[in-house]
């Protein structure tokens, strides 16, 4: 992996305009697919953004499990000689979820129910994945200045003292 590739893969800073662009794509996908909601999750398990209906459970926990599930599947693919299994599907009695890799480091999880079907979701998710991966590629290619407030460290120290 070249240094440039490494830096692109390690980008983890998202700005409002990034999330707005991703949100626009996700809204369009939801409108077409009729899915309930969709989440973009970093490969490390951090939630990037979500659109659609609110979830009943912790989004952080779901994100961690999605990343873990995909990571386990990727390892399984490696053992079987595959590059990766880029799409996963879990079917439930009422709700189902499709997981799809977008680019190198993001997962798109789509929750849907009987108002649509797997074919619709998969078809439009493929289209959305192409557009969203372009957004991520553009984000990764841009050099922008951004920083936390200078007193972040001091305030974090205060917060830690209060918490522990």
């Amino acid at each position, binding site marked *: 992996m070249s240094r440039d590739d490494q830096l692109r893969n390690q980008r983890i*800073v998202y700005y409002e305009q990034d999330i707005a662009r991703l*949100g626009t794509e996700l809204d369009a996908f939801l409108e077409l697919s009729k899915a*309930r909601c969709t989440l973009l999750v970093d490969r490390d398990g951090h939630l990037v953004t979500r659109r659609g209906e609110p979830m009943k459970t912790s989004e952080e926990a779901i994100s961690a499990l999605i990343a873990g599930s995909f990571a386990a599947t990727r390892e399984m693919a490696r053992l079987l000689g595959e590059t990766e299994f880029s799409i996963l599907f879990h079917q439930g009695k009422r709700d189902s979820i499709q997981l799809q890799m977008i680019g190198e480091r993001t997962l798109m999880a789509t929750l849907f129910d009987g108002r649509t079907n797997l074919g619709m979701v998969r078809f439009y998710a493929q289209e959305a994945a192409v557009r969203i991966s372009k957004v991520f590629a553009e984000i990764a290619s841009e050099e922008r200045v951004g920083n936390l407030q200078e007193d972040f460290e001091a305030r974090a120290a205060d917060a830690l003292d209060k918490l522990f």
Partner: protein
Amino acid sequence: MVQINFAQKTVNVKIVYYGPGMSGKTTNLEVVHQRAPSTNRGELTSISTDGDRTLFFDYMPLDLGTVAGMRTCFQVYTVPGQVYYNSTRKLVLQGVDGVIFVADSSASMLDQNIESLRNLEENLNEYGKSLSSIPHVMQWNKRDLPDAMSVEELERHLNHHRAASFEAIANTGQGVFPTLKAMAAVVLKGIMQEAGGPKATSGTAIRPVAGSARPAGAPSPRPAIPRDAPAVEPAFHPAAAPVPAERTPLSVAAQAAPAAPAARPAVRTIAATAPAAAAPSSPAAVMRTVPKLTPVQRSDPRPHKMPVAGSPRRSRPAAAPAPVAAPRRRGNGVFTGMFVLLAAGAGALLAWVVLSVL
């Protein structure tokens, strides 16, 4: 790796408890879950076997609250300690920002401690990291065992990078919070060194700084944990304090250990299917979630209930950022629909021709 989301004003940090099997990693996390303020902790999710052995990972978000306008959250994981779970252990390490190595102080566990530390280094190397570059702290757990090795011996055998170290008796809660606090302090310091200041750019990762795991506080002798009294939390071990010039503002303050925790909390079984990868002796795997008492306090809370029937679908959650005024891309969908209709028509025509010929 640290994720900074300026749209949702969040900073997410991934911390992993690592160590040999039965060294107390999950116990550490359970103590944090039990004693952290209910407004700061999320659900404790555990993918474990029926025997409460971690199968994939335990996970709990710990919310530090809003710091300088950013909701700062630690995503805390543990790994399965058994040797044969290395593949899953490696997966959990992906994107880790800080590692807490939980060593069993028992002399009979020294070899397992060394092997686990070597395994940690190997797995980090696969992600282009190493213990010399990633923030980590050491926890010498089970100090109450009769055959516990001396701290000096443990330091000599295991703490090759002179990281901050803490004595602990995790099942009573002693040493758990100071360890996590020191880890959090080092990681947050690393964030500022990479992201703070006007010169920081988003083009580089918010990577931990080499050697930043070393405590910056002045050396102070570490008191042994008294067996029969509330422990005053130890400062950084002298061997881990290289007498730097500056003193970190995130230094660990002395803190009395809370009372002993109860047994493992009641759990809710979500699934009970034994994975094929589990050892033959492993019983059925379960994922248990310890429900939090109250939801994690958010600066911008999102609704948690599903909309009632008849309500507008996909109502945007409160925390979700509003999209910019860019128009939605409907064109692609229309073209796709037309394409599908044309293809279906062509197919039907072809089928009719074939059937007519037959």
